């Protein structure tokens, strides 16, 4: 059975909530029922058939072709199956997802993976601000799963992150993992100002020798810790860049502890060039 595919026929006039276009909401429905599903838009309610042509049947493997940043909350609350979006996505893609895989073959706007609790989000392009962070008003950011961004990420990536793994293969903006509660973040590109600002616990791994850290981080020396080796081994499958970082970490990484303004039990590792 071929996967269920949505082909975009016309770009919506405004923002559309695309959270209904995912396996759990589509399972067991006929094509006609799916075509009549409502899509909440800015000041009107559309139906699926207004925007998409449908192909295929298997609702466990859903593909959306031609999406753009006007589609928000794609994959929000995803609880299993695979959702592949070809093209860009709007804000809050994969927000609060619990299981399954969300592949975004293109760029993602802000808050991708906000508050996610499990599963995998793989963004092949860049991501906006607040990737893997908390939803507005929430006390904690992503609390499980893996968010992988193959391009760059904006400011405040991993803000208030509590559990899970954030991997950014490109550069990150400022205040990366600000207010981090726990979890792991790995950044392979350049890092903006003030990484780890107010982080309480958790691990930030950087590949930016000489990057400037806040004065509230104390140098802890060079360490080759078994836990970090195991961690990087477990992440190596996420790509050659991650695997290469893991190889270079053997022998030790420079470790900084902080943010001392927030308890100081967070750690930032920096690989030497």
């Amino acid at each position, binding site marked *: 059975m071929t996967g269920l595919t949505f082909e975009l026929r016309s770009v919506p006039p405004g923002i559309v909530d695309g959270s209904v276009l995912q396996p759990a909401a589509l399972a067991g429905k006929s094509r006609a029922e799916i075509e009549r599903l409502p899509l909440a838009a800015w000041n009107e309610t559309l139906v699926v058939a207004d925007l998409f042509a449908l192909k295929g049947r298997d609702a466990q493997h859903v593909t959306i072709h031609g999406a753009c940043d006007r589609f928000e909350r794609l994959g929000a609350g995803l609880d299993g199956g695979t959702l592949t979006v070809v093209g860009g996505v709007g804000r809050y893609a994969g927000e609060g997802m619990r299981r399954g895989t969300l592949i975004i073959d293109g760029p993602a706007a802000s808050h991708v993976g906000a508050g996610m609790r499990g599963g995998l989000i793989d963004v092949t392009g860049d991501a906006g601000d607040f990737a893997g962070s908390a939803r507005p008003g929430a006390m904690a950011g992503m609390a499980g799963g893996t968010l992988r961004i193959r391009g760059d990420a904006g400011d405040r990536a991993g803000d208030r992150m509590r559990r899970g793994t954030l991997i950014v293969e490109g550069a990150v903006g400022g205040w990366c993992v600000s207010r981090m509660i726990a979890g792991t973040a790995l950044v392979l590109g350049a890092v903006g100002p003030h990484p780890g600002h107010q982080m309480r616990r958790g691990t930030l791994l950087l590949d930016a020798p000489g990057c400037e850290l806040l004065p509230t981080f104390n140098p802890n020396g060079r360490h080759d810790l078994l836990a970090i080796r*195991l961690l990087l081994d477990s992440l190596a499958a996420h790509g050659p860049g991650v695997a290469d970082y893991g190889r270079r970490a053997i022998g030790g990484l420079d470790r900084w502890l902080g943010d001392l303004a927030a308890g100081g*039990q967070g750690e930032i590792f920096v690989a030497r060039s």
Partner: protein
Amino acid sequence: MAEALVLDGVAIEDTFAEAFGMRATRLVVTAASPTWARHAAQTFTGFATSVIACGCEAAIERELQPGETPDGRPGVSILLFALSAKDLQKQLDRRTGQCILTCPTTAAYGGIAADAAKEWLGLGRSLRYFGDGWQIAKRIAGRRYWRVPVMDGEFLCEDTVATIKAIGGGNFLIVARDQSAALAAAERAVAAIEPLWNVILPFPGGVVRSGSKVGSKYRVLPASTNDAYCPTLVGLVPTKLPPGAGAVLELVIDGLDADSIALAMAEGIRAACRDGTRRGVLAITAGNYGGKLGPHHFHLHRILGALP
């Protein structure tokens, strides 16, 4: 003695080993070198021969190559048995805390697959408090670990380990012409069993010389010497020794499942009997309590007949 099967000239008594249900876990201990992994494992499994007085039974199951361990370092797998999950937890806490946490460069991981778990025991969950608040929890590949700061860096261990239902007390006795013949046969049997997975021989060198019977003339003792197999008591007590027997040694086998114990018993008996007539091995028998105490019965003739 009852009707016997003969293996390499050695009579195999038609009897059975009587074994008991236990709880068990497997711990994988790694270190910077095989030597340090072995130091930790040997200390951990010290004074763990019998639940009667030690609280648990434990031994090294296998030494592990770097490719067989979670962190790619040399290691040792340990099997730990106790009568209940509560007893197992108590022994796990004490022994890991005093023997593995203390040993340079070590790390400790659970070795029982999660899908086989009957119950979960705390490992790092208890030990983490040694970190005095500086311990760090880290979830790696779906498993939770604790990183406890120690003077050589960090002690890494899993948060929990799985426990499963297991069997303790599989056994067989080697009846020989004299002490040296019995010891040589027992050593052959130990060497045959040592490479096997899922079983341990918890007694010193894998061998017991003080086989016991239930009860004693002294009220305080729950068990006492198995006088029917003591060559120095022949003529004083009803003996089970055949004519010419001068020494008996026992192998006690704990295992994670009945098949593993049966395999170990069969391999051990065959090794003990190899060229037995010339080497002074007279008979193989097994210890039981009439079948009234333990639910697991390993019939010697059946396990030797069933296994190639």
